[in-house]
């Protein structure tokens, strides 16, 4: 056992020395390998972090939202719907929600306006997101003027600003009292934008949804799990699309690796020739090549992953953010929560190291089976 280990250690030692001897060639290979791993790892980290972020945000969402449709478009829900739905067995609470969007002509941004039953939000006051505060240059105690639908001004005093930590959910949010909401949008009484339904047993969710749809044929119940699933598949899909785009880079890299492995320099040929003439067997040279590949792959993989970690979780992924995040006038600033797991890393390994290894098998074998005399005569 010890002998086998020693053989591997000696060959590894020789491999490192020979890699260092051809520094320029190996460094250029390493740099490109590193770049490919870095790109793919950044993508994987970013997508997983966004998925995690979506899961955290949606964990506080209502179990089920009931909307009403009119000619296929969303319409206001009458209050008696809430009463009827609350009677369904298994439903714990039904909360009519009032919310909408407000276009601010001053800066071209859209705010999300929400009415809150919270006693802290008294009529004439508002709690705003950090994005709104920045866009309108507001501080606590300032007045935020909004124009209502009948063109009269609504003056709101800022009583608090949500911290930056809540940006992902609240950057563009303005929370006001129901009275102000009705005045601002000229919103009819006895109606709600939609209903938030809470069901005690999550396993009963689909049964309750079916009952609601049966009682009110014009209603559309949306489950939290459906929203979560949609987000998961959207991020997976975006990640997959970007991956497909990066395939061309991956293929170029494989061709590059193949080329590097095939084009043995005269020195390398001579080296293999000498090794074989002093008694190395083909299997030893193959082992040497195996270690060479492993050293390059692991160095590139580990460095690439570490750099990608810094890129995504410390710098918020400037290279991918534009493609994957989307845009808006008030865009939330957020620091992604670091999520790295063995699954992501093994997927990355399969996407980078395996194609590289496959591309180099045949060139390595060709190098290892050269006749010593032919090699040295070169």
């Amino acid at each position, binding site marked *: 056992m010890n002998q086998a280990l020693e053989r591997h250690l000696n060959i590894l030692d020789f491999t490192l020395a020979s890699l260092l001897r051809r520094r320029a060639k190996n460094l250029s290979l390493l740099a490109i390998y590193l770049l490919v791993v870095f790109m793919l790892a950044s*993508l994987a980290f970013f997508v997983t972090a966004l998925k995690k972020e979506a899961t955290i945000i949606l964990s506080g969402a209502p179990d089920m939202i009931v909307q009403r449709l009119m000619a296929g478009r969303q319409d206001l829900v009458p209050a008696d719907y809430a009463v009827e739905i609350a009677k369904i067995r298994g439903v714990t609470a039904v909360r009519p929600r009032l919310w909408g969007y407000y276009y601010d002509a001053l800066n071209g941004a859209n705010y999300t306006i929400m009415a809150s039953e919270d006693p802290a939000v008294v009529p004439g006051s508002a709690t705003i997101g950090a994005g709104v505060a920045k866009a309108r240059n507001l501080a606590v105690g300032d007045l935020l003027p909004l124009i209502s639908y009948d063109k009269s001004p609504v003056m709101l005093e800022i009583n608090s600003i949500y911290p930056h930590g809540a940006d992902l959910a609240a950057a563009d949010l303005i929370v006001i009292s129901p009275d102000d909401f009705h005045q601002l949008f000229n919103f009819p009484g006895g109606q709600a934008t939609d209903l938030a339904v809470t069901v005690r047993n999550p396993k009963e969710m689909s049964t309750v949804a079916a009952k609601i749809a049966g009682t009110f044929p014009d209603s559309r119940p949306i489950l939290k799990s459906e929203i*979560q699933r949609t987000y998961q598949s959207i991020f997976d899909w975006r990640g997959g*699309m970007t*991956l497909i785009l990066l395939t061309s880079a991956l293929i170029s890299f494989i061709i590059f690796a193949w080329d590097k492995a095939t084009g043995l320099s005269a020195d390398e040929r001579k080296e293999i020739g000498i090794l074989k003439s002093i008694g190395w067997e083909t299997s030893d040279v193959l082992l040497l090549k195996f270690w060479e590949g492993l050293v390059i792959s692991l160095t590139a993989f580990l460095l690439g992953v570490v750099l990608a970690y810094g890129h995504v979780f410390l710098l918020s992924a400037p290279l991918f953010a534009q493609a994957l995040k989307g845009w808006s006038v008030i865009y939330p600033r957020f620091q992604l929560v670091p999520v790295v797991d063995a699954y992501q890393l093994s997927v990355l390994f399969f996407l980078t190291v395996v*194609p590289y290894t496959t591309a180099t098998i045949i060139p390595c074998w060709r190098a290892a089976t050269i006749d010593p005399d032919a090699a040295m005569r070169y």
Partner: protein
Amino acid sequence: MILHPAALALMLIALLVSGMGIYAGYYGMRILRYWNPACGSEQQLELERRTYLISTIMSYILSFELISLFLFIYTADDLHTLFTGAMCAAGTLAVNSFGYPTLLIKIINFLLAGIWLILNYTDNRGYDYPLIRVKYILLTLIVPLLVLESGLLCAYFAELKPDIITSCCGSLFSHESGGFSGDLASLPYRQTRIVFFICMAITVCSGLVFYVALTNRIRALTGLFSAQKVQQKFSDILKCGGGYLFSIAAAVTFLVACASVVSFICLYFYELPTHHCPFCILQKEYHYVGYLLYATIFGGAVAGIGAGVLQPFRKTGSLVRIIPDIQRRLVLITLVCYLLFTLITVWKMIFSALKLA
């Protein structure tokens, strides 16, 4: 078609593996046809060189195969959120008709890959290519299976359309459901439990006896023991097919252990007498213990069957001295893996809140 990074990685691997497999299979057939070590022709020299290439290719692709089985199961488990009604890999695999066949063929390929790697390792230790024919005949059997696996895997992911209502694992592996998985669950747990422990006991006992016999044989071969003494004590065991008995016992135990996982072992983990899913134990809630359980039974089975596959060649040319040593290590691996599996099972049976009367 589903554009999940892991699905893309698995498809990429499947295509690479089958492409390289076809390449290796083609040259494998040439070697089978034209191999003649007595001849010094250019062709023979070329074929001898090719054997290195094919060994290398197969070692790589079969190692990828071993890892990709676990990646596949994990991915199936990870994707369950995309399908209504799916709660774990059981649901994801049932989304279309390619899921379970892909898993089954992946498991078969995993076992064959392991056995091929053992044969290859043994063959490389001998100087005169002693197992070359056996190795390449097995290779020509494996290659079509690899290609079939790639086809099924790509078809599975291509046909995967999110938001299909699939049956959840509870209904798939419950007593009422028909089909193979239903049959496994409906195996009575009392009898399965007894059969499982009897099989384990037989494998471990036959393994220990075989191990001691091999140790003595190695000592006799290296001159530490007089050959006569060995003859008296243990050669009977080796002659009577102790190796075959152990290998068959290991293979049967593998099947019984798989059935036991569905029939009673998982119940102790879920602490629920009606939930027979073999995939939920792979999830975080159960501390990924399923991976350890499956790794031990698969590892044990490959080593155990491998030891038996080497048995007919123990008197072949240069392998006389090599095979007992390799077999001894394989037996040890099987024993350690199976005992670990049994230990986890017994530990859970004692400490689980669920008590099956």
